């Protein structure tokens, strides 16, 4: 599949999804939004892809919805409003039900709607010069879905501070790391993609089926209280019983070799 606003690449077991509108800091217009849905699905359905890395071309990772398009083209605005109202959206891996591990690698600025891909990834790493802020309120908009996603995953005060301070304050990579919003800072910043690839290849050594079931258990836990989350987690755990990887894993370990996992179907 070819894309106008995204680049999809494969490097070994790692699939790459790269925002490619650097001239507008990778802001998302209508066409890009539709392409996201296809790109996530394409990488998810490719059995050779075991891990997905998402990053941006140019100086910045993502700066949210392309407001200039929304404002000038009456159709785009109406369509966006309707899809958010119905929460019928398809631009992140979580929206698309991708159960492969997803690493977001934040280069430069991630602001506003850019947080969708921070909240919805499994692992987030950032270049040392990355900056995070949420300008919604400074332009008379309400931040909702992406902030809710973050609140479920990290200390709430920091998320509210970004929402309330709007464009008047930025959070650096170091603070994001301290808060557990990201788990790694890459310096020098130019090494970000190299490190993301390395991390992806390491994760690709693990059982694809076991990781998919683990992801389902973890994301499911955000929808439920502790005991219910554990009961649902048990279903995902048990779903692996009898899977060839469950014997291959310990066998490879005993024989001191790399496991030969089943590919996801």
């Amino acid at each position, binding site marked *: 599949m070819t894309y106008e606003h995204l680049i999809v690449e494969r490097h070994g077991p790692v699939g790459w999804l790269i925002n490619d509108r650097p001239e507008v800091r990778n802001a998302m217009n209508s066409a890009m939004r539709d392409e996201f849905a296809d790109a996530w699905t394409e990488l998810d359905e490719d059995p050779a892809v075991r891990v997905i890395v998402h990053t941006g071309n140019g100086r910045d990772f993502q700066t949210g919805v392309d407001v200039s398009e929304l404002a000038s083209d009456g159709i785009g605005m109406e369509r966006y409003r309707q899809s958010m109202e119905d929460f019928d959206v398809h631009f992140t891996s979580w929206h698309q039900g991708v159960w492969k*591990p997803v690493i977001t690698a934040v280069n430069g600025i991630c602001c506003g709607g850019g947080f969708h891909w921070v909240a919805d*990834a*499994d*692992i*987030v790493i950032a270049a040392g010069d990355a900056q995070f802020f949420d300008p919604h309120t400074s332009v008379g908009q309400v931040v909702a879905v992406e902030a809710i996603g973050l609140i*479920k*995953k*990290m*200390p709430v005060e920091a998320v509210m501070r970004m929402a309330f301070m709007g464009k008047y304050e930025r959070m650096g990579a170091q603070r994001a790391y*301290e*808060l*557990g*919003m*990201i*788990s790694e800072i890459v310096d020098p910043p130019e090494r970000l993609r190299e490190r993301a690839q390395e991390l992806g290849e*390491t*994760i690709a*050594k*693990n*059982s694809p*089926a*076991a*990781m998919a*079931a*683990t*992801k389902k*258990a*973890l994301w499911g*836990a*955000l*929808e*439920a*209280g*502790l*005991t*219910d*989350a*554990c*009961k649902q*987690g*048990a279903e*995902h*755990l*048990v*779903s*692996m*019983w009898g*899977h060839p*990887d*469950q*014997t*291959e*894993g*310990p066998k490879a*370990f005993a024989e001191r070799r790399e*496991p030969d*996992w089943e590919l996801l179907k």
Partner: protein
Amino acid sequence: MNHQTLEVHHDGPIGWLIFDRPESGNAIDAAMFTELEAAWRQLETDPKVKVIINTGNGNSFQTGLDVEQLANDPQALRSASRQTRDFTLRMTSWHCGVSKPVIAAVNGVCAGGGLHFVADADLVIASDSATFLDPHVSVGQVSAFESIGLLKKAPMEPVSRMALLGAHERLSALRARQLGIVSEVVPSAVLRQRATEMATAVAEHDSGLLRELKQMHWNALEVP
């Protein structure tokens, strides 16, 4: 009560539950699987015990189910499987409904199922030699209860990272403290002493009040 795989005793108001299979990283074999429930019940029902400290002998805190040993004991394996499937496990204080405060003192490696005891404790401290990892997915297993418990109590991204990197990365004690998974890191030599000081302070409080507080905090985690 005598246990084969655990050291259980009390010293004044402090009850101790110590994993005691140091030669196997304190992994849970069939015997420990059964003894854990009995040990928690023993400490819960002993009126002299007000606070419980959970730690391990040797270099490891706890490294999860001893799958190899369990495989040789079909009956124990069946029982463990059933309890996993139905989520009726009786390994941790939370599983067993212990109402007294529990302090986990992580003395070394805490891997896989060992994370149950971190997620399910009320307070957690660690020695500077402690490390945390979740190797499940590296051996074709799913990480569920341990990660779910942790992500309800700490930032999720580092928990997801630990679950998906499996055996290939470890979280240090200092990073675990930054993230609020543990609240204090001390030199190995003084870990038990520090846990004792904390337990002594906690035990100064009214037992009924502590029980209510504990229940209130854990109930709060039951809201989606």
